[in-house]
């Protein structure tokens, strides 16, 4: 969504006052202070890479969500809401909530009881070294690339919004993240993510509140959107019966099976960037509660992301357009919708807080990438394949240096993207190649004890290669879209949904077939890893209102009600 911003207009959208600059500077000082303060509490591997496994459910839950709530997430989905209407909310509700609850109730016990330090680490325990190596190398490679792309996109945002030099934005933000993560490890990243989560809400919440006051409430907003755009823009499900009846060009099957079942479950349950936060919880109940707390707040995020995009459809005097059209006409693009709304309502002070929220979002996402990369590199690649028997202090030292190297690679990627903009589109697609098959491998590993090591490895490899193959097929022959996405009218997002679904199916089928042709592990070796042979602690003595299952049911109920209300 962000790529073409590189060619966007150079005139700044907002001008900061002295008080805005002080607020931004104070934020940088505070995150660095937290890093320095926590340096003394990151001396062992368990401390540095797993935050000592001491986080409460609230801290782990907010951090779990914050690592995902990057500034590109904020600005990109606000832009999508302006472009596609309330359909963008699917990526926050059905595209997140069921998966987060599934992680909490079904998968978390196996991650936590196995005492793994990473998702590739779980694959090692369940399927063997080859599956771990494949998963770890692809994850580490893609994570630093994505981090660099996000860094570059954020620098572009700062250039467009504030007129800041791209080099200045890249280096100041990346050095800050490198310092506080290298000093305090995962604990520092988590603490700062919770702080950043609060600042994002403090900085962004006023926009929908003032916007609703200006338009005269939700009912008037719907009327104005129907007048300015289309009544379809305010319906979540009723327009999804056909590819042609909604602005996104997507069918409900793509949303339910592709987004909710495969992509969302893949991301929220197997992407180590977010799962790492939950693994740092102090006990199993906290680890199960953390994603549920995250899910509850995730349901609220559309209020500060989607609603501003919808409000912009009603109140902005100018019509926003795609990047190319915006450059041609000298106007504003979809991607600028959130800064435009910020500038509309926020004077000195509030503007600084809003910009701080965007910077905080970027830094939380980047710290998440870097800390996850550091752990996977040190434990799943360096210790597993290069240096198996070093003392714990050596791995901590490796983690600190790896943090700095990871940030430098990200900076390098940012400059590479600056020179070759098309890389951005390719890498974003590449990242999606690994998510869906990985979910197939992990879920079979946890729920089906007959799955074997060779089955897991070949399934993961076949799923990934099939995803890459489908992507290349459509690139070379666009008419292939009718087969991959079931419709020649499907847009990019719809294609991603279906490609993910097919690659997941390929992964599962190959895993099952190879597993039946190979010898399974005895049950005793699967204890703690697989459903049916793992003793999961019961919670009979805990009052019902403290049980994760109860709160998962509450969140699920609210989720269903919200979908019906905005049907």
């Amino acid at each position, binding site marked *: 969504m962000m790529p073409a911003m590189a060619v966007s207009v150079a005139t700044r959208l907002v001008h900061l006052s002295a008080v805005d600059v*002080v607020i931004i500077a*104070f934020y940088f000082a505070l995150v660095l202070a937290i890093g320095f303060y926590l340096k003394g509490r990151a001396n062992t591997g368990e401390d540095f890479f797993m935050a000592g496994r*001491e986080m409460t459910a609230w801290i782990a839950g907010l951090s779990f969500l914050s690592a995902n709530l990057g500034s590109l997430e904020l600005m990109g989905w606000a832009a999508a809401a302006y472009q596609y209407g309330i359909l963008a909310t699917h990526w926050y509700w059905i595209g997140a909530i069921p998966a987060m609850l599934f992680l909490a109730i079904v998968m978390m016990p196996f991650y936590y009881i196995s005492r793994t330090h990473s998702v590739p680490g779980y694959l090692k325990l369940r399927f063997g070294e080859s599956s771990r190596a494949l998963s770890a190398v692809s994850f580490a490679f893609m994570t630093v690339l994505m981090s660099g792309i996000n860094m570059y996109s954020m620098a572009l945002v700062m250039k467009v919004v504030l007129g800041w030099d791209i080099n200045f934005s890249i280096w100041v933000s990346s050095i800050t993240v490198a310092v506080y993560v290298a000093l305090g490890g995962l604990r520092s990243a988590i603490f700062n993510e*919770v*702080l950043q989560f609060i600042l994002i809400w403090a900085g962004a919440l006023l926009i929908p509140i003032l916007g609703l006051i200006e338009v005269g409430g939700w009912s008037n907003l719907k009327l104005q959107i129907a007048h300015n755009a289309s009544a379809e823009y305010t319906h979540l499900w009723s327009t999804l019966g056909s590819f042609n009846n909604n602005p996104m060009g997507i069918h409900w099957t793509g949303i339910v099976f592709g987004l909710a079942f495969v992509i969302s479950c893949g991301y929220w349950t197997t992407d180590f960037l977010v799962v790492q936060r939950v693994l740092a919880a102090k006990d199993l109940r906290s680890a199960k509660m953390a994603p549920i707390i995250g899910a509850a707040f995730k349901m609220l995020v559309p209020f500060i992301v989607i609603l501003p995009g919808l409000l912009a459809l009603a109140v902005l005097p100018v019509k926003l357009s795609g990047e190319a059209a915006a450059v041609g006409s000298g106007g504003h693009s979809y991607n600028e919708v959130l800064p435009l709304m910020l500038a509309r309502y926020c004077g000195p*002070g*509030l503007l600084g807080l809003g910009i701080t929220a965007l910077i905080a979002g970027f830094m939380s996402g980047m710290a998440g990438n870097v800390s996850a990369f550091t752990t996977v590199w040190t434990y799943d690649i360096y210790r597993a394949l290069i240096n198996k028997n070093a003392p714990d202090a050596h791995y901590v030292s490796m983690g600190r240096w790896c943090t700095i190297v990871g940030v430098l690679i990200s900076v390098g990627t940012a400059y590479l993207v600056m020179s070759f903009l098309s890389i951005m589109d390719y890498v974003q697609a590449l990242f999606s190649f690994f998510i869906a098959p990985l979910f197939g491998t992990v879920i079979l590993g946890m729920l089906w004890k007959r799955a074997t090591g060779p089955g897991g490895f070949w399934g993961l490899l076949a799923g990934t290669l099939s995803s890459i193959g489908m992507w290349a097929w459509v690139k070379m022959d666009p008419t292939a879209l009718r087969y991959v996405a079931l419709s020649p009218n499907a847009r990019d997002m719809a294609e991603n949904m279906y490609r993910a679904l097919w690659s997941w199916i390929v992964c599962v089928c190959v895993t099952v077939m190879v597993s039946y042709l190979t010898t399974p592990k005895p049950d005793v070796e699967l204890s703690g890893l697989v459903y049916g042979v793992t003793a999961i602690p019961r919670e009979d003595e805990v009052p019902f209102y403290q049980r994760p299952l109860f709160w998962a049911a509450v969140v699920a109920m609210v989720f269903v009600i919200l979908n019906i209300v905005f049907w």
Partner: protein
Amino acid sequence: MPDREIPIWFFIGISLLVNGLLIVGAGVWEIFHPPTNPVVLFHLHASAWWGAVLLLLGILYCVRFAPRRQS
């Protein structure tokens, strides 16, 4: 968590307190010195009351989670 570790909520309190103070200050200043190009809904003085909300929350968090209170 170790007993004497400063909780994250205290850092959040500091952040809200300082930001609230700066924003409410800027908001009150604007009430007496209205800008030539005010933002939309300027008459609601969002800076003043939103800054005050943040300031109060910041004070609450700082007091509630002050390190000396952690036993």
